[in-house]
């Protein structure tokens, strides 16, 4: 029982971590909280539903389609909602936040109109397959989700740490102007970051669809807000913090459902951020910034 819940928690947590990584990449490079990330993630999930249920396509095609669509949405987000605000004189630092709130509300209602408001089931062909290890039941879906998440996190860490583009991204995150002086194509790096973050959101969307077997237009908001909570928990712009924060929140939510009141599950994330911001504003894994 305990181990099964642990596995549930880790599955949920690894999805949260992927969502949070999308937030943290954009925040690290641009210093912007992308409120539309949750909605892009939700669109990824819907693309998955359309491909697997409506067109009866295979799962890998769903992933591919979701990545393409969300990457395109990421580009549009950067092009139309973020770029016009950059390098503009006299724009409040809140403007990008408000602008992405606009995108989020637009996308949520767009999906209402395109896909309908109800609950869409997500049928993975292997949803019912499970293994029995001793007294523990493990579903194949959980393993698939976990493996994909770990692969994704590993690929991202490798890309950020070892490749030239990743180095450029980290340089831009450190200091935009200096990076640009040193010959980094900052504009391209920023666009690429938003696109990659959005594509990760799309992948996470399909994973969530598989895990919960349901996709709704509202899920973008609730998961998006949790992603926000996680990056605050782990430290803003901190990649490892986002992964750890995701796991912590996933486990915490699972255990509240088991041992506490399931209704308050969704409040944990926000209580956590309020407490974290008051006690340790730099996040659990963040560096203290000297004022």
């Amino acid at each position, binding site marked *: 029982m305990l181990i099964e819940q642990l596995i549930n928690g880790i599955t949920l947590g690894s999805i949260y971590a992927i969502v949070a990584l999308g937030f943290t990449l954009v925040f690290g490079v641009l210093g912007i*909280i992308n409120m539309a990330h949750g909605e892009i993630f939700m669109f990824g999930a819907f693309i998955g539903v359309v491909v697997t249920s409506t067109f009866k396509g295979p799962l890998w095609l769903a992933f591919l389609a979701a990545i393409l669509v969300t990457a395109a949405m990421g580009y549009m987000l950067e092009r139309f909602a973020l770029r016009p605000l950059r390098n503009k004189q006299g724009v409040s630092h809140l403007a990008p936040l408000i602008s992405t*709130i606009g995108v989020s*509300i637009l996308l949520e209602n767009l999906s209402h109109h395109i896909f309908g408001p109800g609950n869409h089931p997500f049928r993975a062909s292997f949803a019912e397959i499970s293994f029995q290890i001793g007294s523990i039941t493990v579903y194949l879906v959980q393993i698939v989700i976990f493996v994909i998440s770990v692969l994704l996190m590993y690929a991202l860490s490798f890309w950020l740490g070892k490749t030239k583009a990743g180095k450029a991204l980290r340089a831009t995150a450190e200091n935009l102007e200096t990076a640009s002086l040193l010959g980094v194509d900052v504009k391209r790096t920023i666009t690429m970051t938003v696109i990659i973050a959005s594509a990760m959101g799309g992948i996470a969307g399909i994973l969530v669809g598989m895990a919960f077997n349901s996709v709704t237009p509202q899920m973008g908001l609730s998961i998006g807000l949790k992603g926000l909570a996680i990056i605050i928990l782990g430290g803003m712009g901190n990649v490892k913090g986002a992964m750890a924060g995701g796991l912590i929140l996933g486990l915490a939510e699972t255990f509240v459902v088991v041992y506490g009141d399931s209704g308050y599950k*969704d409040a944990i994330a*926000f*209580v956590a951020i*309020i407490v974290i911001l008051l006690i340790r504003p730099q996040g659990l894994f963040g560096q203290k910034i000297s004022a």
Partner: protein
Amino acid sequence: MLAELINPYYLQVASFILINIILGVSIYITLSTGQLSLANAGFMGIGAYTSALLTLNFDLPIIVGIFAGTLLAGLFGILIGIPTLRLQGVYLAIVTLGFGEVIRVIFVNWESMTKGAVGLSGIPHMGREILNTLRGFGFDPKILGLQNNQFVFLAIFLILLVATISIITFFRRQNRSRVGRAFAAIKLDEKAAESMGINITYYKVLAFAQGALVAGFAGTLFAHVLAYISPADFAYHRAVEILIFAVFGGSEVIWGPVFGALFLTAMPEVLRFISEYRYMIYGLIIIIMMAVRPQGLIDVNILNWVKLKTSRRGQKHGTSSQKSM
């Protein structure tokens, strides 16, 4: 004559416009110190639920409920404000958004008290209570030549109008006072304001609490005008809706959010086909406004231009040239 002019439907729409104007003012107050608070929907919920529960469960008069709800929301504003105002910019926005969500989750889950997601219905209706009270004194709307429901909605509208005008007047006067100048100084540069001897924590908490108070007041009115509330009324969408009043209308002057609330509430009513796409249009408006005119439609320049126009016209006609100064 009067009876034909008064259409309960228009009065109802006008009442919602006035409530939204009050909400717009509530976000304007915190924005006037340069802080973005997305908790006002939550404060509105606290006000609405407090007043509704007091009047439903304890048969208290509506006016007591309104006072209690408003004060409790303001109290929460102080309680939340003191710790969170150490945070700045986006962090504050997220925490206040989180606070709003926590409030909503509590409303949904505290079923013994709030009836959960179903919401509270049968809340005493402000207009009808007034009518009943006046009936007790032997008053009949027919004296004014009005139907009962015409009188009910007219009474609500007039009360809201008085409340809205008083609130706007109060904050316009406050803007020209020591407090208003402190707010403006903090908005321009917090550190400079502090070095000038302004107690920034005090003024920021004051602005935050005032915003909460006004939002809570709007919430109590909302409850007693609609007679039905549910947690969904005070969720993220409401927070965004309040925000867009200020984003669209402008947050530099108090007339900005007032205009934003007026225009954006009336628009879906006038253009019926729009109301289905309302939130999509809201989203587009936010994106376009941020890119093109981040200070909102109405700013200080526009106000000065309007003043100039009206004063010129006054001079041309040879009247009121002194008044317009």
